[in-house]
């Protein structure tokens, strides 16, 4: 597993910082069109400095670079290297290559269709990051890009798990990725979901974030096992979210579950998750430290869950956890939710 986050890119080094109670630096992003200001977390430049030179990445957007760093990192981290001819690629994306999408459409609006760039358009397609990583790794088999809200990582992991049913596939590299752009920030602002830029210390409102997370799922025995993935459901009203999350948690099973890595981000999701989690399960929100990277967020949560299992510790909480399983919840801002249960190899 591997990640690129606003706190850096090494799994263990970022984990240590989370245990220390660190939070990603907050930057102010200004919208050139509207003058609005947004609080965001950005990936520091050094986090992607080891990215290999590849012609596919020459013009690629930030999201593709984050995805490549995380994907290659997860493969490098694997104890058993997979046969890439029998490895599938599954991406979780929410807003996708929004920087190039905005630039591409801005040219159309400003100067008309003849000004539109044929170099930008292919990068606006949701599966562009997956395509670049497949080319870098020379993966010629199955590649899927799953899109959705903040729960999309759960749906991507579910798809990967279903793919592993196939005798032709031994491993799935699952990558979640996102990039920050003013257009998306403005959308969340108008949706009244963003943190007030004048109140960065407030716990209300989300801070958009960027980066990528990647895990390699294999049919062979590993350090951790996803014992169940629940692709979840849709909530049609926010008031339903807590009840529906509780049903997902019940299906995942709370016996031997001591901790839940939630998707709370300073919005209605916090209330829904708190109401759904049983009292004996500790609830930790990585988004409080890393921001909400939407498409990448569940992959980050899964990595945090693995680290909780490995170390028995939960950031910002005293004491150690008994061995058992850790739940991961993905509740998005736009009606999707799901969850999974992760256990260590000895706890299956």
């Amino acid at each position, binding site marked *: 597993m591997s990640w690129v986050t606003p706190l850096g890119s090494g799994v263990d080094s970022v984990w240590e910082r989370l245990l220390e109670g660190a939070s990603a630096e907050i930057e102010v992003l200004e919208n050139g069109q509207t003058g609005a200001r947004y609080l965001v977390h950005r990936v520091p430049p050094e986090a992607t400095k080891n990215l290999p030179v590849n012609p596919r990445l020459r013009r690629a957007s930030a999201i593709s670079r984050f995805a490549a760093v995380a994907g290659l990192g997860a493969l490098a981290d694997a104890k058993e290297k997979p046969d890439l001819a029998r490895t599938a690629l599954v991406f979780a994306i929410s807003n996708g290559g929004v920087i190039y999408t905005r630039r591409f459409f801005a040219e159309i609006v400003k100067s008309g269709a003849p000004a539109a760039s*044929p170099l930008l358009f292919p990068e*606006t*397609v949701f599966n562009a990051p997956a395509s670049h990583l497949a080319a870098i790794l020379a*993966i010629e088999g199955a590649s899927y890009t799953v899109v959705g809200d903040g729960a999309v990582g759960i749906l991507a992991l579910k798809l990967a798990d279903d793919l592993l049913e196939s005798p032709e596939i031994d491993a799935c590299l699952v990558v979640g990725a996102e990039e920050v752009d003013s*257009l998306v920030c403005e959308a969340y602002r108008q949706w009244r979901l963003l943190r007030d830029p004048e109140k960065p210390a407030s716990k209300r409102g989300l801070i958009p974030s960027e980066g990528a997370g990647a895990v390699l799922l294999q049919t062979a025995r590993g350090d951790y096992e996803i014992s169940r993935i629940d692709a979840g459901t849709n909530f049609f009203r926010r008031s339903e979210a807590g009840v529906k999350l509780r049903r997902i948690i019940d299906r995942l099973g709370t016996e031997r579950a001591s901790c839940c890595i939630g998707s709370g981000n300073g919005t209605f999701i916090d209330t829904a998750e708190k109401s759904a989690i049983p009292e004996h399960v500790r609830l930790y929100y990585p988004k409080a430290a890393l921001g909400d990277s939407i498409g990448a967020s569940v992959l980050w949560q899964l990595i945090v869950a693995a680290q909780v299992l490995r170390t028995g510790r939960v950031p910002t909480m005293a004491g150690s956890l008994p061995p058992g399983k850790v739940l991961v919840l993905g509740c998005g801002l736009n009606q999707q939710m799901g969850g999974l249960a992760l256990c260590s190899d000895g706890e299956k």
Partner: protein
Amino acid sequence: MNSRTKTQRRVAIVGAGIVSPLGFGLRETSQSLQTAKDCVSPVEAFSVEKTRCKTAGQIADSVLLGTRPNRRDRRLHRASYMLMHALDEVLCRAPQFRPEIAIVGTTSGGMSFGENFYRRLGGGECAAAWIANYPPQKQVVDALEKFGIDAPAQIIANACASGTNAIGHAFASVRGGRYDHVLTGGYDALSELVFVGFDCLQASTMEKCRPFDAGRSGMVLGEGAALLALEDFDSAVSRGADILGEVVGYGISTDNHHITQPNPDGSGPRRAIEQAIDDAGLRPDSIGYINAHGTATVFNDAAEGKAIMQMFNGVPVSSTKSMMGHSLGAAGAIEAVITLLALREQFLPPNINFRHADPGLKLNVVANEAQKAQFAYGLSNSFGFGGANASIVLAKA
């Protein structure tokens, strides 16, 4: 948690619904196909004054949107309505069908709402409804909600192969025993950003869309939605379901040659086609009809044509995009339904606007008119940006 079971169940199609420029529903679609109707018309949704291409296959809003009596309905994207029409048709045929999951393909969801949002920034009023109803999963969730279906929506965005990838993955999941009932398909609505995108790549044409023709000059875009209800065959039989056909094979490959162009040797499409036929336990000569991806771009048709030439010997081929344009994420699903109709009604859908055979492509193109035929298996191909290639094999019931 994966058990890698060896379950290989048969997968029945127990419901189908379609909305496209060819018409609303299976009957209108079949009539358009059998009469070789040209459903491409001048673009009305946005200005095409400065684009090379001026036409597209479009669905009339007057029929699509209906009366929309309440305020909430008026906020939804027209793509949501496409899916609602398609799902309504599925459920009319299979009223007891309750999917455990919806696996649906798209490339751009409610993109035109995103365009509206951008245009109004810095002036004018933005509608919060554009933001909430723009994301690509929302249109599927809207359709599920409309019919009271409480199933997760797994949205696959593999560019122009999205619809076929969604159906293929849904098929594999039912066959492998992961699910018993899956709603699957694809959708996309015409948008200015995507239209200009293909135009600036010079992939779209200023004249007619002529797949596999020597004088082909590019695609025209289209839009629509199509859905299939897939069910474990034995379960469908035991409850007396009307089985429309079967999905029997699926192939997927990734072509790393270039992000927008296939390897000219046709190896990417060929791998997907070979895998689909092998997955079905068939030989190429079992296939009686190929609904080709056939965008009418020089490069796509050459690569796909080469793959077909290498594998088949005179099988009838047509691209129904010639009649209704390329509906991107919907294309694979619409063309699966077209292939299903062809199998059920035993005809070959036409490849219209065909004038002169490409001397480099020795293909048996179903030129300009539908033909009667007897065949048991049909192949449907979809290939997209990012090297996404997918093929499925359907069988007559």
